[in-house]
């Protein structure tokens, strides 16, 4: 399985090199005050979340899939290797985000540190959700069709939010859920919310993994 993870990273070597160059530019622009740290860390979380498409496209271009299925690696482990590759990528982004938060905290800019932490948590969590949804779709439909299906679904969700959340008072409904809580509880909940959000988002990868395994077990090349 480690061989497959290494294979993924070697396949993404050029992409990751270009990411590092972009990262250096963004960090420089952030230090110069052009962009906020929250924007930069968020941007990288989103880029890391886009890597599943790249991984599968690289496999497809090299016609790796039938060869990969012929290797003496259990199909569940093949899926596991792909999930771990993406988790490692997201872990790297999390480290980057923590380093940013830590830097601002050490400099005494707590407001910027908090802002970076919140943005990082949201983007990291959304990246995990994206992977949890997209990976079974890719295993089922292939990277290109999955991309279309995913964006269509995303647009649908945004449309739903715009239609329901804004004009019909969905926002008030959401706030109403917090109404029974005391003010102190609300503060504690809000403080823990980013971390809870990330934890819940990453937990979604568990059922996603089992769905992907079930799909990939029946996959033919």
């Amino acid at each position, binding site marked *: *399985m*480690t*061989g*497959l993870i*290494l*294979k993924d990273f*070697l*396949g993404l*070597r*050029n992409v990751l090199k270009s990411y590092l160059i972009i990262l250096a530019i963004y960090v420089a622009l952030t230090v110069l005050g052009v962009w906020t740290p929250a924007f930069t860390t968020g941007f990288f979380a989103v880029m890391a979340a886009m890597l599943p498409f790249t991984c599968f496209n*690289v496999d497809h*271009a*090299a*016609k*790796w899939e*039938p*060869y*990969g*299925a*012929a*290797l*003496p*690696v259990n199909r569940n482990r093949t899926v596991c290797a792909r999930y771990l590759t993406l988790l490692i990528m997201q872990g790297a982004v999390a480290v980057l985000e923590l380093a940013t938060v830590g830097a601002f905290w050490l400099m005494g800019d707590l407001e910027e540190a908090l802002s970076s932490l919140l943005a990082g948590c949201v983007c990291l969590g959304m990246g995990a959700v994206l992977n949890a949804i997209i990976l079974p779709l890719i295993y089922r439909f292939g990277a290109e069709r999955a991309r279309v299906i995913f964006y269509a679904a995303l647009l649908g969700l945004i449309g739903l939010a715009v239609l329901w959340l804004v004009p019909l008072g969905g926002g008030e409904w959401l706030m109403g859920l917090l109404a029974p809580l005391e003010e102190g509880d609300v503060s504690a909940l809000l403080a823990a919310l980013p971390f809870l959000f990330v934890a819940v988002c990453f937990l979604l990868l568990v059922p996603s993994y089992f769905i992907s395994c079930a799909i990939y077990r*029946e996959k*033919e*090349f």
Partner: protein
Amino acid sequence: MTNSIEIRGLVKEYPDFTLGPIDLTLPGGAILGLIGENGAGKTTLMRCMLGVTLPNAGQVSLLGRPWEEAKADVGVVMDDCFFYEQLRPKDVDSVLRRVYPTWDGGLFREYLDKFALPEKKLIKEFSRGMRMKLSLASALAHRPRLLLLDEATAGLDPVVRDEILDEFLGFVSDEDHGILISSHITSDLEKAADYIAYLHHGKLALYGEKDRLLERYGRLACTREDLASIDKNDLVAVRRSQYATEGLVKDRAAFASKYPGLAVEPVSLDEIMVFMEKGERL
């Protein structure tokens, strides 16, 4: 001695094509050449043997074990190089040593030297011949007992093909080893294969020891009048053109004694395929 391959009643159904039922045995220490026209089911059969494609029915046993358990002892070369173009042979070594428990990095480098493949050059800079040699080096470096090669010599020049065929012959000198090679280049199989399996429209049209097949079958060139006098059971197929009439004879020796006035010549695998594919079946 364990059979390298045993296939019993293998069937794979698609909406517009059915492979099988296939029954096939390859003893150890032998090479089986799999031939057939494009779309006959050769690649499907090989993929079914490895679980890459899942058959609807039948059993596949490799090296005396179910295919799932034997995969680590099987070297695979498919019709194209399957490694990422941005990798180098040394990267392939790093990846596959973590996949195959019996991977031998020293042996891999020996094959790279033998095939004159630079370890640090990008695969995208390799010619087709170099890519196929890399695939073969990868298939051999974990010391497999069975090689499954799908069009492994396609697109290679005769010198490279000869080198690779020599490698195959060396591999099966061990009676514990076996090779299944599918190829359109029947001259290669006539040189190297011990057994021939001919797939025609998904069915096994011919299967047996190569020498016996080539000894048994024959090509008859005759007139239309001669053809009319021949018992249809003595021929497999005929081809008629404006200038000639030819027939594929089932049993050359028996035919020669039954029809002493008619000349029957030895036939090549290519000619057998053409008769089967284009000839009029009797």
